[in-house]
Each structure stands twice: as C-alpha cells, then as structure tokens.
C-alpha cells in the first residue's frame, strides 16, 4: 500500500488518531505552521495538578490540516504527554517522537514531526502568558522562531495571510 513507507506506529495513529478535537476554555492553545509544505496544527491543553501539587497536562487535544506524518505525530505526541507534568512534557523533543515511530521517517518528512512539538510549546507559551506566569526562556525562543515561520509562510504564500488572520480572528 501507498503508506508502506511509514512505520506501523505512524499508520496506527493515522488510522485511529487519539485526542482529536478542541478543548473549550482550554488553558493554552498553540498553533504551528509548516514553512516547507503549508501544514497547520493546533494544540489545546488543560492544566491540572497531581497529588504532589505539580502542574500536569490534565487533557490535551489537537487539530491538524496536513499529511499522514503530521496527523500521526500530533496523535502520538498527545498520547506521550497526557498526564505528564509540564516539566516532563517540555523535555520531549522531536527526536523522541521519531524514535517512538520505530522506522526512520523519509528525510523529506522530517519537518512534519517538528510541527507537533512546536504546537505543544506554543500552547505552553499561551498558558504561561495568560496565567501571568514567567515564560521560560526556551519557550520564548521557540515562540519567536515559530511566529517567524508563520510570518514567512505569509510572506511566501500570500494566501496563508488570510488563512492566519481568520484563524486569529477565530481565537479572539
């Protein structure tokens, strides 16, 4: 089949993605756009506390406009961080996702897996900002890079400007 270039794990998540949808009144919403191919992803997080009083991801949901890898990576990431402390979730990298997928991604698809991590980081950035908490330096850096990528999309593909504006409008 056409998707045989992808691992079983990717196909599993693509066939039956977990945590699809929105969280109304989410504590943080993150959005990342892929500069290379034009995919777009949104992550919604709800923050709670564990017994030790640490902040955890109580719930997480995603929406993705994109290819097999973009969809399966979003799903995989949500299953990996749900219930984890924010600290643990922030430690998760693109390489952890790729490792979890088992079979190496085609080189051309590597950029798709950054998207999920970026969208999650943006959701945390949004959470910290809204809660008036200090935003970790790393997240600030990520935020600048991700926003710049979205701007570049706007610059390179004029049609994405409208798309982004509408998305922002929707958020407000």
């Amino acid at each position, binding site marked *: 089949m056409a*998707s045989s270039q992808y691992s079983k794990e990717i196909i599993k998540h693509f066939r039956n993605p977990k945590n699809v949808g929105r969280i109304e009144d989410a504590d943080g919403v993150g959005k990342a756009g892929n500069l290379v191919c034009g995919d777009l992803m949104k992550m919604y997080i709800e923050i709670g506390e564990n017994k030790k009083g640490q902040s955890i991801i109580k719930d997480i949901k995603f929406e993705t406009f994109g290819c097999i890898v973009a969809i399966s990576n979003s799903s995989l990431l949500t299953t990996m961080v749900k219930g984890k402390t924010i600290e643990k979730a922030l430690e998760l990298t693109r390489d952890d996702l790729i490792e979890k997928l088992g079979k190496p991604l085609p080189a051309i698809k590597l950029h798709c897996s950054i998207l999920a991590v970026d969208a999650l980081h943006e959701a945390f950035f949004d959470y910290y900002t809204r809660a008036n908490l200090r935003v970790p330096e790393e997240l600030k850096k990520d935020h600048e890079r991700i926003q710049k990528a979205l701007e570049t999309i706007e610059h390179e593909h004029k049609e994405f400007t409208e*798309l982004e504006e509408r998305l922002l409008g929707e958020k407000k």
Partner: protein
Amino acid sequence: MDYAATTPVDPRVLRAMQPYQSKKFGNTMSLHSFGQEAKEALEKSRQEISSVLNAKSGKVVFTGSATEANNQALKGVAFANREKGKHIIVSSIEHHCVLDSAHWLQKQGFELTYLPVDRHGLVDPSSVGDAIRKDTVLVSVMHANNEIGTIEPLKEIGKICREEGVVFHTDAAQSLGKIPVDVEGVNAGLLTVCAHKLYGPKGIGALFIRDGVRIEPLLHGGGHEFGLRSSTVNVAGAVGFAAAVEIAGRQMDSESKRLTKLRDRLQEGVLGIDDAHLNGHPTLRLPSIANFWFAFIEGESLMAQLDMRNVAASTGSACSSESLEPSHVLIAIGLKHEEAHGSLRLSLGRWTTRQEVDYVVKVLPQVVQELRVISPFKGRW
C-alpha cells in the same frame, strides 16, 4: 481509480508481444533471417502506429518513453535550429518532462515563454500568436492534461504555428487511445505518444517527426531509428504498442461513451460532498479523468485513507511531492496553495466498473468527513 498514472497490459497485447521476447528475439540491425524477422515486425508496428496517427508526411521514431520523446523533441529542435533562434514557448501546465527540458535549455542559453491557462486549464490560442517572435523555434502545448484532463485547442494553436512558420510539438501521451490523435488535424510538427497509458507495455514511447523538421538526436551510436535514436530497438515493446493502439482505436467510441457515463456518475456523487470542487474543464475533458479539491483537508492523507479502503488515487498536494511543491497545474489554473493541498485525481479505465464507482462515491464522503473532524478548519478557512 488511477489509470492515468499507468495501466495494466491488456492480455491481448501481452500475447502479441510474447514471441518477440523469446523465439523471435532478433536484432533489427542483423542481416540474417532472425534479424530481418524482427525488422519486419518493427516496421509493421511503425506502420500501424503511423496510420492511426495519420502520420503520412513524416516518420514515427520509437523511444524508451514519452519522457524521452519529449526531451528529444525540445532539445533536438532547439539545438538543430540554433542559427534560426533561441526562443521556445511552452504551456505552464505541461508534464514535468517538458517543463524540465525547457528549463534545462534555458540554462543552456535559450529563452523561454510560459503560456498561461484559464481557470479550466485552457491555453488561449491567441496567446500563442502573441508569444511567437522572429527567433521562436518551437511551441509545445500538450494535447490533454494528465492531471485535470483538459483538452487543449490544438487545431487552432497548430494553425497559428503553421502560419508563423514555427514547429509545433504536442505531448499526446495521455490522450492517445482515449480521443482521436491526428497529426494532420492539429498541424503537429512533432507529437509524443507512449504505450503504458493505453494498456501497452512500459518502456516504449514514440515521437512523430514531420518531414522537414530539423532535429538533432539525443542518442548517438548504431544509427537505429533513422539515425535519430541509436539503441537496439525494443521490438517486443513496439509490437505491443501497435497492438495496444489497435485495440484502443477499435474500442474508442464505445469505451469513451462508457467512461464518460461512469465519470459523470462519479462526479455527481463526489460533488455532493460539501465544499468539494471540480478541477479542469467541465466538457472539454478526457472521459477518464475527474480531478477535485476538497476544502480544509490535505490530499496525501486523503489518498492514504482511500488506499486503506482499497481505492488507488493520486493527489497534487505538496505533501505528496518530492519537492514539497503543490502541483504546478493546479496553481496554474488559479488554485491557492491550501486548495491544491486538498486535491484528488480519480481516473477511470478499461476495467473500471459501475460497482467500483459506486463504492468510491460511498466511501469518499466518509473519508473526507473523518479528515475534516481532525482539521482545525471547520466549514471555513
């Protein structure tokens, strides 16, 4: 649902070819009886294909593929006519093998003009006249587009080229066997065809070259194919090509009617999906191709979901291409990047049944719905 990509070899074609893979294995250049037997079969095949193409005032040269024939046409004419000029005109929706050949020629110092198309993918013949300069050596506009199926007004374009004294090339790889291809009718100086799109074997194509067209060979060597394409000739391929052309020609009228009916049934069903749109010309289109775009979802995901339900389709989405660029054809007809992202081509063929069409019409809305549930865009961008 992906016959436009390639087709299975018709069993009748396979039977015609078989002797030339084993017993009748001769080299057409050998003077002994084995060689002459192969030579006879080759010339008979050439004759049959020439007659279908109405190629009375020129020759049909066998090549390894349509890609090779298109490379031969563009590069061969460009280099043979350098004293006359260095300007080449191509449409913006040509197959990559034409566009990339033209682009390569540009790097060698030739100048290039791309002809725009309208939202249905049609080239305006008057734009060809406007683009032609004193130093134009070649115009290349395809017969029918491989992605959206739009049939170009070749007759008018060919007439303009003839009046202006410019060689006209057309790539008929996708149209041969589906609609009549007549080199005289369209005033073609050069015309590309191949076998694997019409239930013939892969690895064989052909280029019609009108008498008087100056052209340089790409391959030098033993002088095969009138000195234009040295290489031991693929006789079995040529025999299979001729058999495939003969069968397709014989069935064309009835098959065209049957496919048009099936395609329209498919189209009607698919366009019942919310925010589904047809790409390509509503009527001036191959009976076998229906290309759509669906808002808010991405084509590679769509294709993969269909694949999991045993439907083979293709997409012009950036995600599915090696370059991560969306289809140049869909962009040329005015689709936005995110619209081309959600494109799907369904193409029908000799063994497509009504049951299959109905199955696609049943599962496609489900698949589109599933992906829209995942998409951040709900009913609007």
